[in-house]
């Protein structure tokens, strides 16, 4: 269970597969069966060609740190220490907002373009919501 009291997402019919994937340890993206475009956040059509024939697949979970801030006046549920709010660039192309875990929340530790990998954190006792976070790739 997360020690952080995050504002939790409420899945909708168009995003349910994504949150189901997080619960099952998979980062699920969508791609177009016609033009092979891939995108995030979820929607039931291709934003490049408007095709409704959409395929759900499991992403590699690999990403790079694209940009971030270190919030010093954060959400009360995150405690008193400053924490990074990051945008990561997935290996497949799309960008996601996330937090970087498993490393100090400092400019010295958080280097742009550093390799990251996804990890999923349980948010609720009933195991209904897991959130995708990213941690530095070891080694």
């Amino acid at each position: 269970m997360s020690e952080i009291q995050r504002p939790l997402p409420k899945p909708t019919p168009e995003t349910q597969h994504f949150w189901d994937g997080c619960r099952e340890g998979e980062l699920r993206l969508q791609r177009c069966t016609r033009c092979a475009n891939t995108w995030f956040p979820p929607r039931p059509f291709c934003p490049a060609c408007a095709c409704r024939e959409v395929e759900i697949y499991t992403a590699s979970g690999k990403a790079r740190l694209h940009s971030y801030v270190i919030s010093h006046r954060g959400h009360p549920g995150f405690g008193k220490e400053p924490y990074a709010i990051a945008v990561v660039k997935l290996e497949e192309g799309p960008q996601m907002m996330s937090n970087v875990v498993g490393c100090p929340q400092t400019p010295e530790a958080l280097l742009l373009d550093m390799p990251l990998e996804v990890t999923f954190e349980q948010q609720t006792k009933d195991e209904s919501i897991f959130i995708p976070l990213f941690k530095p790739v070891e080694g």
Partner: protein
Amino acid sequence: MADSFALKPRSVAVVGAAETTKMGLIPDMSQLGLHFDCALNAMTDAGLKPSDIDGVATGGEDVAVLAHMLGITPKWVDSTDVGGCSYMIHVRHAAAAIAAGYCSTVLITHGESGRSRVGSPGYAMSAASMAGQFEAPYGVTGAPSMFTIPVLRYLKETGSDIEDLARVASIQREWAAMNPRATRREPITVEEVMNDTMIAWPFTKAMCCLVTDGGGALILTSAERAKDFPTRPVYVLGTGESSEARLISQMEDFTSSRAFRVSGKQAFESSGITRDDVDHLMIYDAFAHLPLYGLGDLGFCKPDEAKHFYRERRTAPGGSLPTNTNGGGLSYMHSGRYGMYALQESVRQMRGIAPAQIEGAKISLCHGVGGMFTASGTVVFTNES
């Protein structure tokens, strides 16, 4: 290029412009009350009464409530609401509506009790919205922790540094020092900006906008009618608008705003001017990075050259491209949706009555941003008919 737009440059003019009577801390007025105050001030400025107005536009407030409370019977309404640049877009839409004959005299108002929060709507976000699902869980707490996220990437790709952000804030304070209505007027050095309270690294408090109360209103009519008003007409030369991602994480290029580029390009093309023609520039500065993005995305330079405009003091008092001459959202005022105050400064400069007046200025470009990098609106004004 202006030939491709049916609405010709100088077809429509601003004939009334005013801010709220007080500025900064106004605990004795609600948000709606601020709308009333600046609307009445603008009507006085133009010598009009409510029955003379037949078009109303506003954002952040219900346009029907506003029109009714002000005693206006509109033939045209616009409640375009895409954040702080909504008012630039209202000017654009109003110009088209007047040219189309839908209405003859449009009132655009903005009022916001940003600091005192009297009669203000809340900031509630649905957990099922895109932002509620894909950004809120990561601890974002409003603009200071979202609008700022692309900056580290911008600095890296453009060879700029955090001091360049601080320099924007320091130079704008020089402009604010000349403005009796500015909220923050005391000089601040680059070092002092860098050492101010940390809000969201690399942004210190002095790199973030103020949080204040205020409002502003504009009245527009056809250029033909504008000559009969007591004020010096300020003509709309060209306009642009666009929008991009509502989620900051989904902005396609962290070094450049697509909405800025699309809106700016339309504004230049519809006005038929070049960058060299611009005598006075307003770039909505909710945070210190926005003028840097704006200079590049509006085509004044390449993105990696924007920092030099500040290092070489080209945007500063005495510089060749005076920018944010009221002190900007960083030092003049920022109620939450700053766009109207940038428009007011452009109009003052074109009327020749600004506190930090640019002598001989004939063309002012006013560029707005809204909802982080979500939306953009651009208006080019001139005082030459």
